[in-house]
């Protein structure tokens, strides 16, 4: 989205499902055709609105997973069993179906390629989604800044975009990836097996002297903890951008 674009009110648009892709047993990617989509920045989100036959409406926010230049808009939806909107998007909706969406939304939790500082991305669970848009954008740049991803998930089956992240890291010496499994891990896993803590943050993301730009997205408790420890390490609060998405497990507002 060109920054010189005139500001205008965002409108509800009809998004048509082109394709669906299972990412994990609990998460699915929707590939959407949104006519006249104005483009977006990596890290932005959309609001989805569903209307029931009796007129009842439910609205939720979902991060955009696709890179700004991609032809179709992609959202990755994690199913919350007690959710009002996510079970429909994660299980029910089929190619050809249409639902309402507005966006792109948010100018704060975004990464612009002209920001030259090393990038530190810290994800908890489906908090990887907006950070993946940043990694996908970064992978298209000729002279991308270095990037470090620290990804906390419960178990290996919960890793979203696992194969793509591995492929990106294998072909890019300036991208390093660390994963931590907080509940269950493969017997031969020799990486982290605990919740994100200060030592992990010191090991897995660039040191203070490199002035990294830090993006943290995940359940509220995980983001609180990571942000507090990052500040304790000495990272300036202004270098840390956070996106909390509510209680873990239920994450209420999705």
């Amino acid at each position: 989205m060109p920054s010189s674009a005139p500001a205008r009110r965002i409108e509800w648009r009809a998004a048509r499902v082109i394709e669906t892709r299972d990412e994990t047993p609990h998460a699915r990617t929707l590939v959407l055709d949104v006519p006249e989509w104005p483009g977006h920045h990596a890290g932005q989100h959309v609001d989805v609105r569903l209307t029931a036959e009796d007129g009842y409406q439910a609205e939720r926010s979902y991060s955009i997973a696709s890179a700004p230049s991609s032809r179709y808009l992609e959202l990755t939806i994690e199913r919350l069993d007690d959710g009002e909107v996510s079970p429909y998007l994660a299980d029910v909706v089929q190619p050809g179906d249409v639902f309402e969406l507005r966006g792109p939304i948010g100018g704060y939790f975004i990464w612009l390629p002209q920001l030259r500082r090393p990038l530190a991305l810290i994800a908890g669970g489906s908090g990887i989604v907006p950070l993946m848009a940043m990694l996908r954008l970064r992978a298209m740049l000729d002279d991308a800044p270095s990037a470090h991803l620290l990804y906390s998930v419960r178990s290996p089956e919960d890793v979203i975009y696992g194969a793509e992240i591995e492929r990106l890291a294998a072909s890019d010496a300036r991208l390093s990836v660390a994963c931590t499994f907080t509940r269950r891990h493969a017997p031969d896993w020799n990486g982290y097996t605990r919740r994100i803590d200060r030592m992990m943050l010191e090991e897995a993301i660039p040191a203070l002297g490199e002035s990294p730009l830090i993006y943290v997205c995940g359940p509220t408790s995980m983001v609180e903890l990571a942000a507090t420890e990052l500040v304790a390490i000495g990272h300036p609060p202004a270098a840390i951008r956070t996106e909390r998405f509510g209680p873990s497990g239920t994450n209420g507002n999705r």
Partner: protein
Amino acid sequence: MRAMEELLLDGNAAAGLLAQIFVPDVTSALARCVHCQASAALGAVALYQGAGSVLRCRNCEGVLLRVVSAPDRTYIELTGIRCLELPLA
């Protein structure tokens, strides 16, 4: 009942709601708190969502802004924002 901390989000989660009211994105604007004078991007302040949406200063927890939506109208209180600094594209 969920604990208050679990309802805690960031101002950026209110960007869609605020876009119904303000045309430029205000979550990237700096807001100065009337209570403690701290400045922060609205996208970075604390957001509590219950019956309405309340943005609070992370420094002093004072209320900055409150939005309540009724079926046919929106109420917005700018209780605690002394100054909003909007970058012009």
